[in-house]
């Protein structure tokens, strides 16, 4: 039976080459479940299939919590996707594990990529070869509640631009009841959210240091700058009392509920915050440091090609990847998901830069850093723990930080 099929296939391949191209090729695209992303991708697939008759793309999604596990397990079982979405921080693992194949230099010339995309895309490059390309990139910005600003006598059209102004605004907007309990926070404090990125790539630099060496292989935040940055961060709760870790469970929940005047979060939160109806909110760039330094953290999910794709499936996968990283796809993605286009020419249009919401995020991309994580969850946990040791156990910031740095260095060394 199999042999007959094979023969028929060979015959068709040899004799009817032209007709064969029109025969159905099915490729699988994997990403995690996030409503807006799924919707945007469905639309991209529809457009792609209309332009490429004969190629069908099966859209497979998994919950985020076990997305990475599914990809890795599927690979171990010898059954992986043709095109797969991955966080840039997983690249090392996926490349080492043979889950991805390098993008062909003909279809995706590195020089062109580097010219067209934002420089952070180089985090996908290993030994001269690219292993994936993003559709969209993310950066951080300061979200603020205009209603709470007005209530506190602040100008809602003139949000804080420096850390000092930011602290003053947080102090003005914090509300407490008679027993001293916080009933509305000036700012959210949530290391488990985006604050660990803010501390690592922004605050440490603004206090005059660097979190890591340029190759991200050596931890350097355990100096004076890192300690001062962490002391400043924890003092927001302990001395200034403008926020509390765990207030309203999660920072984004507090802001959404209108119980926090400011929060630092990413472009990916826009979708969720757009449904807020009971107050007006605005976005501005992350506050500048004491010496005027601005910094930001940028990240992205890239799309790579699975190691098992070959022949006409590989061809279809390349076409599909080219389409979902095209300017057209990026515009659809921006509209549907709210994430910033990864190509400079698509992102930095006058209209986008002037946009009150996209503008601040785009300007942030200019001076953003992209941490090369080896195990993001574990590295985040170390900063969460260091902060908790200061807040809950009165450990000296210098000691908490030294321990975190030592453990993080061990983590990084173990993966090299």
């Amino acid at each position, binding site marked *: 039976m199999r042999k007959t099929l094979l023969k028929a296939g060979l015959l068709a391949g040899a004799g009817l080459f032209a007709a064969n191209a029109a025969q159905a090729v099915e490729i699988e695209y994997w990403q995690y479940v996030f409503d807006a992303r799924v919707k945007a991708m469905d639309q991209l697939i529809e457009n792609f299939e209309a332009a490429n008759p004969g190629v069908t793309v099966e859209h497979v999604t998994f919950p985020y919590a076990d997305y990475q596990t599914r990809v890795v397990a599927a690979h*171990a079982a010898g059954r992986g996707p043709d095109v797969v979405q991955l966080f840039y921080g997983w690249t090392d693992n996926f490349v080492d594990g043979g889950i991805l194949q390098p993008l062909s230099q003909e279809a995706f010339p590195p020089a062109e990529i580097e010219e067209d995309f934002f420089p952070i895309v180089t985090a996908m490059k290993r030994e001269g070869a690219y292993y994936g390309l993003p559709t969209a990139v993310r950066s951080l910005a300061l979200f603020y509640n205009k209603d709470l600003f007005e209530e506190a006598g602040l100008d809602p059209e003139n949000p804080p631009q420096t850390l000092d102004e930011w602290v003053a605004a947080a102090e003005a907007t914090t509300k407490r009841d008679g027993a001293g309990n916080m009933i509305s926070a000036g700012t959210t404090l949530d290391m488990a959210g985006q604050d660990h990125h803010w501390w690592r790539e922004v605050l440490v630099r603004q206090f005059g240091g660097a979190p890591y060496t340029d190759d991200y292989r050596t931890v350097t935040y355990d100096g004076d700058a890192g300690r001062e940055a962490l002391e400043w961060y924890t003092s927001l709760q302990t001395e200034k009392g403008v926020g509390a870790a765990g207030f*309203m*469970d999660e920072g984004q929940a507090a802001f959404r509920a209108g119980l926090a005047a400011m929060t630092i979060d990413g472009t990916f939160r826009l979708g969720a915050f757009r449904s807020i109806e009971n107050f007006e909110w605005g976005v501005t760039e992350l506050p500048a440091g004491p010496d005027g330094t601005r910094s930001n953290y940028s990240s992205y999910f890239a799309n790579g090609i699975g190691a098992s794709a070959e022949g006409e499936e590989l061809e279809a996968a390349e076409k599909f990847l080219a389409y979902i990283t095209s300017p057209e796809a990026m515009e659809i993605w921006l509209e549907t998901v709210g994430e910033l286009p990864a190509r400079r020419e698509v992102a930095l249009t006058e209209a986008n830069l002037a946009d009150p919401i996209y503008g601040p995020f785009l300007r942030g991309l200019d001076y953003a850093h992209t941490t090369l994580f080896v195990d993001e969850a574990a590295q985040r946990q170390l900063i969460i723990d260091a902060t*908790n040791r200061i807040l809950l156990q009165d450990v000296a910031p210098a000691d908490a930080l030294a321990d975190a740095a030592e453990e993080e260095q061990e983590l990084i060394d173990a993966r090299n």
Partner: protein
Amino acid sequence: MAQTNDASAALRAPSPGLAEEPARGWHRLSMSQKQVVWAWGFLAVPILFYAGIRFYPTLDAFWLSLTDWNLLRPARFIGLENYAELVSDPDFWQVFENTFAYLLIGTPTSIVIAFVIAYYLDRVRFMHGFIRALYFLPFLTTAAAMAWVWRWFYQPPPIGAINGFLGSFGIPAQPFLRSTEQALPAIMVTAIWAGLGFQIIIFMAGLRAIPGTYYEAARIDGLGEFAILRKITLPLLKPTTVFLVVLSSIGFLRIFDQVYNMTTNDPGGPLGSTKPLVLMIYQSAFSSYEMGYAAAQTVVLFSILLAVSLLQLWILRERT
């Protein structure tokens, strides 16, 4: 094993009369032997099934614990390195301590509360069924949903229901899940509450099974309520108690849902103060992909479960 082979041979044998040769062997068996063959024939199915999906993976976990498998690269034998790492890992000892805290506080507390409620509920006639249903309700609820509701109960002001209640009596707000001391008991309370309904039902069934004549005889002899409880009820309830203690211990040693769902932002936190062994295994395996290390932790958990179960059966054994 030999019997299993016989059984499958018997199953494959055509029914008597269709073929002479194999039928002869079957006919030579006595009625009771045939019954044994049939019994094993049917038993072989679940046995093989369990061997495939339970025992083989269990044994494989022992092997994996001696390797550095990480899902991506082939497993490499590294001897007892994982176990050495485990012993020298301070996080593991913290997790070990937490796991036993759940067990040693959770099991006795839940058993005592369940017994007291069952003992008195047994005497209530008014709305008995309704009250029993109320106690049983949490047992029917998804652990994740329950954990999230409790998570919001424990929030600081202005939204936490418990802190709101304390506040109305002028008691200062408690950090609960944000405290390294209070977080573990706070989570344990929800786990005890969730399992209570089941334990009450089983205790009540046990109480009902004690013949009323014993009580009558005791009362005629003039024994007080407490003496009846101590001399008749508790000893006769022993099989029920043993069953519940073993079951509840295993439950607390394997606690995961409540902890994970109540601390998703900082799983097992703050500072690992609520992290049980199962959560550590989960993180090693599915967050860091250290399958070998996770397997070593699993072997440790397996040994603890086995030891605790055997110990309890031995302590609570029938002394004849």
